[in-house]
């Protein structure tokens, strides 16, 4: 396809129509923003944006629908965390027992250093108990580095409730629906 390039008229070579067009466009935007308030700025913190559902905010520990904590101190999230932000102290053989029925252990202490967290979501992906979730907080502030190391109570308090996801059951069903699968299920 050949683009036709007509030779420019004398007015166009002086760029006068281009100048006039520039004036019109900028004037239109200027008066629109100034007198009718149509700006595209979102004036944070008075106006906030809507956090989409799968947003990877800050990681928190959650309870299930009966109010039980879910973490069993398997330490998988601690080992997978790329910047090593999670630090778990397991109960050990003589440590405290779990605070709910149907669980063998719970962590003695669970700390996440929010200044090291990179919000990658690996801990949520790897947790077998669906105990840690990346929720919707995106602006965390504190007044000292120690304040930003969140311990277990704070994480549980901020986590809220996330019952009934059962990710491994759904993964098993997906695997069974596949045509070939390396292991007999």
């Amino acid at each position: 396809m050949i683009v036709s390039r007509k030779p420019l008229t004398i007015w166009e070579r002086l760029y006068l129509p281009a100048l006039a067009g520039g004036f019109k466009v900028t004037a239109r935007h200027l008066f629109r923003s100034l007198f009718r308030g149509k700006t595209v700025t979102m004036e944070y913190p008075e106006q906030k944006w809507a956090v989409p559902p799968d947003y990877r905010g800050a990681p928190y520990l959650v309870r299930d629908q009966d109010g039980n904590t879910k973490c069993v101190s398997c330490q998988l999230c601690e080992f997978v965390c790329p910047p090593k932000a999670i630090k778990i102290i397991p109960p050990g053989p003589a440590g405290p027992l779990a605070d709910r029925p149907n669980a063998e252990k719970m962590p003695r202490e669970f700390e996440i250093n929010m200044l090291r967290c990179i919000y990658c979501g690996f801990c949520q992906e790897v947790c077998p108990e669906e105990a840690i979730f990346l929720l919707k907080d995106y602006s965390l502030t504190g007044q000292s580095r120690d304040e930003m190391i969140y311990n277990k109570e704070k994480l549980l308090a901020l986590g809220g409730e996330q019952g009934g996801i059962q990710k491994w059951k759904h993964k098993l069903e997906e695997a069974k629906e596949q045509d070939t699968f390396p292991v007999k299920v």
Partner: protein
Amino acid sequence: MNWNFIIFSIIKIAIVIGVVQGMVAYAVLAERKISAWIQDRVGPNRCAPPFAKYIPVVGPALTRLGIFQPLADGLKFMLKEDFTPAGVRKVYFWLAPAIAVIPSMLVVAVIPFGSQLGQQKMVISDLNVGILYTFGIVSLGVYGIVLAGYAANSKYPFLGGIRSSAQMISYEISMGMAVIPVLLIVGSLNLSHIIGWQAQHGWMVLYSPVSFIIFLIASFAETNRLPFDLPEAETELVGGYHTEYSSMKFALFFLGEYSNMIASAGMMVTLFFGGWTLPFWGLNHPAATLGAGLAHILIFLVKMLLFMVLFIWVRWMFPRFRYDQLMDLGWRRFVPLALANILVTAVVLWMKS
């Protein structure tokens, strides 16, 4: 020793420098707000001292206009760390911002910003060679930039300084030659006489529009404003000649650039748009009363503000000139055009006499 003259001159200098520096600070704010509105966003609208929210209606309104932002900017410039990079010649490094600022402040000495208040003429020095003085001082502004680029001991500022100085020198020629028809028509270099002539015969822009256009575009190039922005463009040269300068020195460069803009706007208003006169309501004559004197000063300020808004507006209208296009325009188009303009004006004046 004419003590009267000296004391009034000192008072005038103090007031003018105070007002010009205040205008520079608020020109920065105006640039940020107007640029923001042109780009569909809001400029600075949050900065406020603690008592501002207690003033009933005006406080929050002024905060949303960003009136207190220049105070914060000034405070920032004073408190920032003043860093001298290694390997620079300290003398030149410290001297360059001063040399960049001083000519712009000197130019306002000849611009008449009113007619008179009582017995005092509203111009700091009513030189008979006002325009010659102006162009001489503006040429000194090149030294500051050259020195700034050279003293920073770094590639990008050096290139920016060289480009900027070449650009300024080329456009000074066309600027000077564009003003010559004005002088031919008026017959005097004294800026007050030019304004007097315009009061009688109408604004100069109607008599030689070509020289107004050349002067306008050359003053965009003189002050390094878009579309002749190449020496300080961020995408081209990081920061151009003021990359390596921090806090107060950078503030001085900034001050120099905006004072240059204000001085150029003042020159344009004086030479082409009648200075402090308006063609109606009897404001064509030097003020007889105090009220008329103040009205003249106000008229001058309003006209100058309109030109400042034009400077800011044009920045967001046009793309930047490439360096060879810039030099081509300055030497191959404007110089012949200005020369032809002088010739035509001289011939027309000769045929009329």
